[in-house]
């Protein structure tokens, strides 16, 4: 085993289905197996979660995959070197439209019903008609400026040559998304679970497509740690990463996924009903209150994909995210150091952790004969 330098840790998470690895590691005792006493602290906003990590109020945290790069570049915040030794999940987001926009799409395109996944070009007529009638532009929401949600939304719209001049994109925190859709403050959003399913169950939205329909198997959430914390506590970071990796492996099994949904639903975590948390975890995308769900087996991925383990923070993943940030115009007038990705994405720590995990497995088999 390994001796962590610091055993009491506070971890931040945002109430989302893909915070499952953190909650499972806590509830199934993986953290304690590695000698860690972990407190999970629910956060209300990504910006505050980031600031608390930067300031040392959180020792580690679930992060949107582009956030370690944004922090290291000082985008929207003070420049602080944040690293990730572990990818926590792939996919998991979806684009949900308000019922009003759903009806507008049917009307302006003379359609009786929608085919899913929805092609973005069906929005073109809506945008045109609104412009002619001098009505306000469509307003879409993502969850953070430096999020896959934002880039996925952009990619989907770009596929139909719809630009940010044609509609507005704003940021709304995940927990408020359903209320914003319902009030008409936003016409559509790209958000993670369980908030899409919640909007569908409540009859206020149509989930038009999942992020898996836009990008296949790209990192969504990662474990974020200050580089300075890792330097001071290398063993703690290995133990933490190992416990979370075990939770990700545990989450591979579908029967376990339902158990995870049960854990997540408690009010200290997601505070949401099982019937909106479980579907995406078992590969089902709720679409509309009067339409059947779609099968999206990779809706939430925590450990394996068709290409092997997903948890390694490979440089190529970081470079891809960086190119998305650049496409979105977020790197204008920003000097990007050549080693930005290799400083932030740390497969070397992942490999050290994997060796420890293997050691532990070998010892376990020896003991049990």
């Amino acid at each position, binding site marked *: 085993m390994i001796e962590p330098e610091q055993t009491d840790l506070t971890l931040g998470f945002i109430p989302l289905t893909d915070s499952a690895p953190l909650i499972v590691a806590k509830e199934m005792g993986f953290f304690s197996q590695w000698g860690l006493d972990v407190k999970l602290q629910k956060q*209300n*906003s*990504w*910006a*505050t979660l980031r*600031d*608390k990590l*930067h*300031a*040392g*109020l959180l020792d580690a945290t679930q992060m949107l995959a582009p956030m370690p790069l944004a922090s290291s570049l*000082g985008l*929207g*915040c*003070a420049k*602080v070197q944040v690293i990730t030794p572990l990818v926590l999940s792939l996919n998991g987001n979806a684009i949900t439209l308000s019922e009003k926009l759903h009806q507008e799409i049917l009307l302006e395109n003379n359609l009786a019903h929608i085919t899913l996944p929805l092609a973005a070009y069906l929005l073109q007529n809506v945008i045109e008609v609104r412009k002619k009638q001098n009505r306000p532009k469509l307003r879409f929401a993502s*969850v*953070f*400026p430096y999020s896959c949600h*934002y880039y996925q939304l952009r990619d989907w719209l770009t596929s139909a040559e719809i630009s940010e001049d044609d509609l*507005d*994109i*704003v*940021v*709304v*925190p995940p*927990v*408020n998304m359903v*209320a*914003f859709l319902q*009030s008409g*403050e936003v016409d559509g959003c790209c958000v993670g679970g369980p908030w899409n399913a919640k909007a569908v169950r409540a009859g206020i939205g149509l989930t038009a497509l999942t992020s898996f329909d836009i990008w296949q198997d790209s990192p969504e959430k990662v474990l974020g740690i200050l580089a*300075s914390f890792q330097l001071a506590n290398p063993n703690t970071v290995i133990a933490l990463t190992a416990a979370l990796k075990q939770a990700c492996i545990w989450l591979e099994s579908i029967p376990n996924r339902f158990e995870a949904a049960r854990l997540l639903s408690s009010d200290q975590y997601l505070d949401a009903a099982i019937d909106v948390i479980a579907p995406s975890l078992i590969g089902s995308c709720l679409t509309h209150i009067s339409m059947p769900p779609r099968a999206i087996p990779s809706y939430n991925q925590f450990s394996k994909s068709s290409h092997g383990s997903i948890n390694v923070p490979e440089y190529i993943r970081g470079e891809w995210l960086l190119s998305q940030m650049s496409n979105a115009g977020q790197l204008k*007038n920003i000097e990007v150091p050549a080693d930005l990705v290799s400083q932030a994405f740390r497969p070397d720590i992942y490999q050290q952790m994997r060796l420890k995990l293997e050691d532990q497995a070998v010892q376990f088999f020896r003991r049990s004969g």
Partner: protein
Amino acid sequence: MLRTNIFTAWIYRLQHTDLSSKHTAVIAELRILLIDENRQRAESLTSALNNSRYKISHLASPNISLLKQVDEIQPDIIVIDIESPSRDILESVSTLSNYNPKPVVMFSADQNTDTINQYIESGVSAYVVGDIQSERVKPILDAAVARFKAFQKLKVELSDTKQQLVSRNLIDQAKRLLMKKKNLSEDNAFKAMRKTAMDTGQKLEDVAKTLISLLNTI
């Protein structure tokens, strides 16, 4: 990493701000948008700022209307509870849109926030720890505004300087090309470019760009 007490940092700055503000003749009214679900704290802040140059609009549960409110009020400062989910909406106001960035001051009841440090250094936001004491509120807001303005000025200067560097490089490159391909002296090459710019009413930088693409294709 060095951890400084926020208040120490603020008080240090306040002394400097106070000195400079003595020379400010006209003090304009500043609009504050306060986002805080804690009504008691909101009331104490509002009363602390009575008869000052700050005018407060308070939003208790801003989730639905925050964007509209920001649009309507056009606040000069936003004061927000650090734990409010709406914090992320503000990130979009300053990052995704062209809306002018605003200084953001945050209140937090969390005693641990003593350790929040470098955020005041980022120049974008300021954190205030613990309960609001009325005599401290005004100077904190004054300092936040002053610091924010200084930071914005610095940012603009930096981007101007970068732009100047880029255009100087372009001009140099065009000049060198002219010297080489047209066999001109440095002085004459520059004069030729300047004349073209004056004759055509273009910026020297744009003339340089055209020259570079022309001379490189010949």
